[in-house]
């Protein structure tokens, strides 16, 4: 069979050692009533060649972002992933290893995680970061749980509406599980009303779904005013230009890490990051790597502060995370090393430049930016479309463009809003083509 090395002789020799005639004997401890008496009803096996042809066909039945310009964003961006990222991260010793339990055989993974923690700490302006979460949404969820665990008498978290709806949904699932609740505030005023002595955390996304960057600072202050923790979720690439949330006073900074050297993968696997101020280090969920000395005095790295984790705390745990998204974090680490501080700034800046160009051109066509044409943004923004956004997107798709996302599909108050993201991969030609087609659609 496919990946089984055993020859018939070896099977026989092993059964002889065990004194059995058939492997069936090894399954006799399964109650007869439970045993499966028929073959599993599965599609026939394919050999590798057939499989590869089958998968190439399935793959080609999807439109990919290398074929058509895309203006989709919302936390996942078709940024350029340098070739060296894959060439290195896919080396077998990285890919086929487990969580680095035995430090002596895992220094590659451990050192890379330590680098990752350092880079995230520095980008976010916090004290420390852990090894990775599943994704941005679950990272926000865990941040909410951490807060509720910290402030045990409180049972609410309050989020600003501009947070990614999936993050809100996950927070809701997570906090409801422990009997707490999530309130969503539609504005800073609303937030001010909703926070109080039950608030364990205020959650804000920076920049948010509408591209807004100005709300986070105030949200952090409101959190602290009521004694809650301030949690900020950030696109890490945006932090190349924006004041880091840690410096603004956020207690926890989390986010979706995909924009750092990860392919879109239709949403996963990517990774979430999780960084905290010093006071919360021993509360951080998931793996942490620290520096250690070996018996010969050499510097190396180990999993540390494990007393936080599920395998030690068991029924006292606040997070159950075990496997994380280490390989995706490795890709991000290699990406950040490759592009460096200057490269990451260039990525963000060239995206912003083209985004502002596009926004101006679309404005000339009569599309109006929300929440206000004057609010600052980086490389993602929302515009009100004169007409049916879904229809516009279909029109564009027929012309080979993946248009922006219709935010109304996420939230009713956002009906008619078109979320446009511009990455460094978009050329002026791409933007001009979009503008031309929007114009054609408007005057159809």
């Amino acid at each position, binding site marked *: 069979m496919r*990946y089984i090395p055993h020859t018939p002789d070896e099977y026989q020799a092993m*059964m002889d050692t065990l004194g059995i005639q058939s*492997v069936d*004997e090894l399954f*006799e401890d399964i109650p007869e009533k*439970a*045993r*499966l008496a028929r073959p599993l009803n*599965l599609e026939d096996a394919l050999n*590798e060649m057939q499989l590869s042809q089958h998968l190439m066909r*399935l*793959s080609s039945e999807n*439109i990919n972002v290398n074929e058509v310009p895309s203006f989709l964003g*919302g936390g996942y961006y*078709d940024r350029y992933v*340098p070739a060296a990222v894959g060439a290195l*991260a896919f080396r*077998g010793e*990285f890919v086929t*290893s*487990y*969580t680095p339990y035995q430090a*002596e055989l*895992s220094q*590659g993974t*451990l*050192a890379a995680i330590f*680098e990752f923690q*350092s*880079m995230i*700490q520095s980008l976010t*302006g916090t004290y420390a970061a852990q*090894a990775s979460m*599943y994704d941005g949404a679950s990272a926000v969820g865990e941040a909410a749980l951490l807060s509720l665990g910290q402030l045990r008498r409180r049972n609410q978290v309050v989020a600003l509406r501009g947070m990614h709806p*999936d993050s809100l949904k996950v927070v809701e699932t997570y906090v409801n599980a422990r009997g707490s609740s999530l309130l969503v505030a539609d504005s800073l005023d609303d937030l001010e009303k909703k926070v109080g002595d039950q608030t364990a955390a205020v959650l804000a996304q920076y920049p948010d779904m509408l591209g807004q960057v*100005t709300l986070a*600072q105030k949200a952090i202050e409101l959190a602290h005013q009521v004694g809650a923790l301030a949690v900020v979720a950030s696109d890490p690439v945006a*932090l190349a*230009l924006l*004041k*880091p949330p840690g410096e603004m006073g956020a207690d926890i900074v989390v986010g979706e890490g995909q924009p750092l050297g990860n*392919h879109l*993968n*239709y*949403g996963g*696997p990517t990774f979430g990051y999780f960084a905290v101020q010093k006071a919360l280090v021993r509360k951080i969920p998931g793996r942490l790597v620290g*520096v250690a*000395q070996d*018996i*010969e005095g*050499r510097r190396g790295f*180990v999993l540390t502060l494990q007393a936080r984790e599920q395998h030690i705390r*068991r029924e006292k745990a606040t997070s159950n995370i075990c*496997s994380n998204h*280490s*390989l995706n974090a490795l890709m991000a*680490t290699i990406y950040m090393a490759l*592009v*460096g501080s200057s490269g990451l700034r260039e990525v963000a800046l060239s995206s912003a430049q083209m985004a502002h160009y596009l926004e101006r051109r679309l404005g000339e066509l009569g599309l109006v930016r929300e929440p206000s044409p004057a609010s600052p943004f980086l490389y993602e923004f929302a515009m009100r479309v004169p007409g049916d956004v879904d229809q516009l997107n279909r029109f564009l*798709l027929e012309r080979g463009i993946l248009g922006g996302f219709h935010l109304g599909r996420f939230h009713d108050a956002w009906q008619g809003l078109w979320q446009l993201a511009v990455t460094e991969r978009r050329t002026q030609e791409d933007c001009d083509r979009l503008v031309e087609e929007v114009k054609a659609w408007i005057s159809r």
Partner: protein
Amino acid sequence: MDIPLIFEKSRPGRRGVRFLSPESLDGFQIEEHLPRELIRTTPLGLPEVAENDVVRHYTELSTLNYGVDTGFYPLGSCTMKYNPKVNDWAASLPGFADVHPLQPDTTVQGLLKLLQSLEDGLKEISGMDAVSLQPAAGAHGELTGILMIKAYLRDQGEERTTILVPDSAHGTNPATAAMAGFEVRVVPSNARGGVDVDALRNMVDHTTAGLMLTNPNTLGLFEEDILTIADIVHQAGGLLYYDGANANAIMGRVRPGDMGFDVVHLNLHKTFSTPHGGGGPGSGPVGVTRRLEPYIPYPRLRQGDDGLYWDYTPGKSIGKVRSYFGNVGVLVRAYAYLRSHGQEGLKAVSETAVLNANYLSKRLADHYRTPYDRTVKHEFVLSLTGQKSRGARALDVAKRIIDYGFYPPTVYFPLVVDEALMVEPTETESKETLDRFVEAMETIDREIDQQPEVLHEAPHHTVVRRFDEAEAARHPILTWQQLTGEES
């Protein structure tokens, strides 16, 4: 040699991959578009290195790692089987890897078909009626499943508050129950390593929401009383949760659904050979029986007139447990694995995994105590109490194994076995590899008496040796800034 860090190679002004040149910015000034107080002034702190530096550094780091591609990795409970290269290749196809999660469903029909087939396959293998591919890992699947149980019971008007977990359970099981707001009660094991049925019978009551079970359990033993156990829990009004970490033992032989389980998660990064990547990503799809289906996370994949689409109607769903649809790149690999095997292939996988474990267990039993005298499934636990009394702890033996070229088995888990060494060979290891491992283990056992210090100081030939982990935890240094004292 100290283990190197990329930061140490940084030189101010050195560049790796560049993007647009300053001129191409055409006079664009971020200062004109952002309020001054929101503009970053602190350095980003990323290393400044050339591409060559990066390539050499991570090439070197990789060689400091041990993976399945390096050698035998009998890490119990982790199913470190061979990870097929063709599956990695598949996941990197542009139609899978370079697809945005917000693309219209009509533009991703190939992918949706794949996901649908995978759901169908997992349903059949687990004996469940519906599957969600959303959870990102085993623990995540557990949370999803336990929340479905909670939601279901609540809809039945029952506010049940406790989850039962055997003492041999993996840490994520109790942690999950706690995270889901349940009180955890620990069920003792019996002398045969299974759930103590009498104790269980005494523990269930009207507060019992369910029992979480791995079967075969973490001792590698099949719960022979599983049908009775299921009856007890169901009769008490609770549900049965199946932790599928050990499903590599049972494919095509028995299905969780047929054992009486109501919710099942599968670890695709174990049973379905997707690589573990030094800690993840994994994927933990959850299957449920019909009555729990309404609670599955949304969106759900459905067949419409124009093809497959994501149905975002929440209904009674517990909601979302992560963004978008799941770890699609992992799911593609799992699908490739499924299609590479078919029913015969998967059955052979489990049979061979079990044969390998029994063979290895039997051969090691001459020198190491196997605490339960039973047929095992895909893994087994040794209890090194004998070795301990002769002067070498399980950890010492594990570290010494490294010197013989293998990754050590899991140590000190499950907690119910003293000095546990948990060995899972998997089906992709050959007889001669197992024989080499036995030889090494026998030699190590002799070494305990002949030169115990060799074990205490092991490993000897690695790039670093044992660490002072206690000190590392006492004064944790978690970042480069902390290491260099530049911390803010």
